[in-house]
């Protein structure tokens, strides 16, 4: 085995064990773990909110929570799931994996990396602490439309806390993206050319570029909202030359790319997993990468499809560009199926979740193309059809990929393999529960049930479909509890796990589990996009010779 030796590197640190070692760390692996654990904590918080929402909606004319509490619940649920779970989890995973996958010892800017984690945590806690103010937390939804989020309707500090917290989270995302792109472009190991970078890392590059382009629009938009609220500004006040639609333009200029920021990393996760468990290289590697950048590029030009019903945008243009996104997404599906085609598929837990991702995301993608058509959108806008659509994308898509990633990389991150049997049980609960929750919502939406209403009259079919959705949500919650118990029991048992339990292809499987502080004692030679596979083959060859 030849390659670059990176042995015996003393790692400077304030402390090597204990709480201080985590607080003061600049190690990308520890920061990645902190990101993922924090993100998962917010997943629980937002999940409990979802359970309260489903309890309230289980039957018509219920009043488990008041309408104002309900508004706070769906606002914080959406905000936490998007800004504090799905996005930071991807950044946490990327923090852990990207340097390993490209054979680097750390991120380009380790201290900046630590800073981004702490400011993300501060921002998330700021938003949540709005609940402790007079008037409660923000209640104007996760996109905080004016005038709903203006000072006249949302006079409490909760909305300001929300704005400041999201601003901090957006600064964190921008700086992390700079760090990620710099790491990939500058710190690749010798031999790791751009066309040998693993797909997950490529997808993170596309994601990070999107963050750099899209998040500043949110920063400016929320800055304007804050000026309007607290300094008497008139950006969104039509009476003094402002425009409420401007808020929507700037928000969705960020908000639509944000959808892809939430899904591109998980495309990467699924690609790695599908390839590993089909025992085949990624089918159409270059196409996969180009499709990611095509999706990223197109997603910058579709923002106004969220605003068809304002009547203030060019419906044909934004509809056509939105349809176009289905093309690169279709290429990705084609390549995933191509990767599995005639492969030697093993249905492990990560693979099950990845297949679940494909099915759910396909569902959400198809309804996405439907609502990209203005005539359908005029009917489905702000109905449960839309709620179901984006939950299929983010819940059925990103969340399933997050579970897949956890089962797949848990042995690498912690040196502990999660129990496969209970993992499959968890998948069954999640898959059945998810579809039971959200498939009925398509019908509710078509029947005309609007989103964000805290209760509804006893119309034919509404009660039973909502009851079904609540039952599904409960099944999902049981699945999550099974997952947590699985993690705890596996961590206590600590069954010995090899460095590469799955027969992985990419560089993170070439080092120990968990990796040492400096990541690699030796780097294998990198001659393709599957260096660890090449290494295994050459080892087999030398054994045969003997």
């Amino acid at each position, binding site marked *: 085995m030849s390659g670059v030796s990176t042995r015996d*590197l003393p790692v400077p640190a304030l402390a090597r064990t204990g709480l201080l070692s985590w607080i003061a760390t600049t190690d990308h692996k520890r920061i990645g773990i902190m990101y993922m654990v924090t993100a998962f904590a917010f997943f629980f918080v937002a999940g409990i909110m979802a359970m309260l929402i489903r309890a309230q909606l289980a039957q018509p004319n219920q009043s488990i929570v008041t309408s104002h509490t309900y508004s706070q619940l769906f606002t914080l649920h959406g905000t936490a799931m998007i800004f504090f779970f799905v996005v930071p989890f991807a950044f946490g995973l990327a923090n852990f994996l990207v340097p390993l996958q490209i054979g680097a010892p750390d991120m380009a800017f380790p201290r900046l990396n630590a800073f981004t984690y702490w400011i993300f945590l501060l921002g998330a806690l700021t938003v949540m602490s709005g609940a402790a103010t007079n008037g409660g937390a923000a209640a104007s939804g996760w996109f905080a439309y004016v005038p709903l989020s203006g000072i006249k309707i949302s006079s409490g500090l909760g909305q300001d806390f929300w704005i400041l917290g999201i601003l901090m989270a957006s600064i964190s995302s921008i700086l992390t993206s700079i760090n990620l792109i710099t790491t990939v472009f500058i710190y690749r190991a010798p031999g790791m050319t751009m066309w040998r970078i693993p797909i997950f890392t490529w997808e993170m590059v596309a994601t990070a570029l999107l963050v750099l*382009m*899209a998040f500043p629009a949110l920063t400016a938009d929320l800055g304007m909202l804050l000026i309007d609220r607290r300094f008497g*500004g008139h950006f969104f006040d039509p009476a003094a030359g402002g*425009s409420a639609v*401007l808020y929507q333009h700037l928000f969705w*200029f960020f908000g639509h790319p944000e959808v892809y920021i939430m899904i591109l990393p998980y495309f990467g996760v699924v690609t790695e997993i599908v390839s590993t468990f089909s025992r085949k290289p990624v089918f159409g590697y270059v196409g996969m990468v180009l499709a990611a950048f095509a999706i990223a590029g197109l997603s910058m030009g579709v923002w106004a499809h969220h605003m068809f019903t304002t009547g203030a945008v060019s419906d044909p243009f934004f509809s056509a560009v939105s349809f176009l996104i289905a093309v690169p997404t279709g290429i990705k599906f084609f390549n995933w199926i191509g990767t599995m085609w005639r492969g030697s598929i093993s249905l492990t837990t990560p693979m099950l979740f990845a297949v679940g991702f494909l099915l759910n995301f396909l569902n959400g993608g198809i309804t996405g193309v439907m609502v990209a058509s203005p005539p359908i959108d005029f009917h489905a806008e702000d109905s449960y059809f839309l709620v179901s659509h984006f939950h299929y994308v983010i819940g059925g898509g990103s969340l399933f990929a997050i579970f897949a990633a956890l089962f797949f990389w848990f042995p690498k991150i912690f040196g502990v393999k999660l129990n496969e049997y209970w993992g499959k049980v968890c998948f069954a609960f999640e898959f059945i529960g998810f579809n039971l929750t959200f498939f009925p919502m398509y019908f509710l939406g078509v029947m005309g049930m609007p989103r964000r209403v805290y209760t509804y009259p006893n119309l034919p079919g509404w009660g039973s479909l909502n009851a079904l959705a609540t039952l599904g949500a409960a099944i999902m919650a049981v699945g999550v509890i099974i997952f947590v118990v699985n993690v705890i029991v596996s961590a206590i048992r600590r069954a010995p796990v090899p460095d590469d339990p799955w027969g992985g292809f990419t560089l993170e499987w070439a080092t120990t589990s968990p990796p040492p502080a*400096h990541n690699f004692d030796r780097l294998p030679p990198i001659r393709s996009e599957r260096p660890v596979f090449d290494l295994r083959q050459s080892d087999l060859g030398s054994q045969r010779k003997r």
Partner: protein
Amino acid sequence: MPNPKSAIAMARTFRQLEPLGTRAHPLVFGVVLFLTSELMLFAAMFAAYYNLRSNSSVWPPAGVRLDLTESTVGTFFLALSSVAVLFVGRSLNRRHAQQTRLWLATTIALGVAFLGIAFHGWSKANFRIDSNAFGSLFYMMTGVHAAHVFVGLILLAALLLGVREQAFVGDRRAGAEGIMYYWHFVFVVWVGIWATLYLVR
């Protein structure tokens, strides 16, 4: 191969294994990425300006007085400052400490002059941030830009205090490069803001 002292030192070693000049310094690369993001921040404000302008029949609102002459003088100072920082780079390349300090001081003085003119413009303006949408836009755009100038001045001052032998090579040289890029960016964006607020109106 130099004796690596840390994980990051190892990364630098990796970088040196590549043919020289094929990879940018990470700091310079990171600053360029940061500036693309900054450009999008200002782009959002330009978009807001032209969106609201196109929605209004009278723009800027009646009674708003803007001093084109004074702002042009300010723009001129910032332009000279952006030129001066080019000479900072040239002096750094020649490893001439005294010359570097001199050009840095010139750059800073011109930047301070720009900020002074901006403050004077705010103090005598006959509209406020809460007067109308134009006022909100005017103060947000000039305010965010002035904050950028202020941060740039602090960075340049830090550079001035740190001009020693080490400043000419390696990470410190890259840091100086990043600050210079930033300073040029601040000027270029100002030309857009100035043209929008005072010429196009």
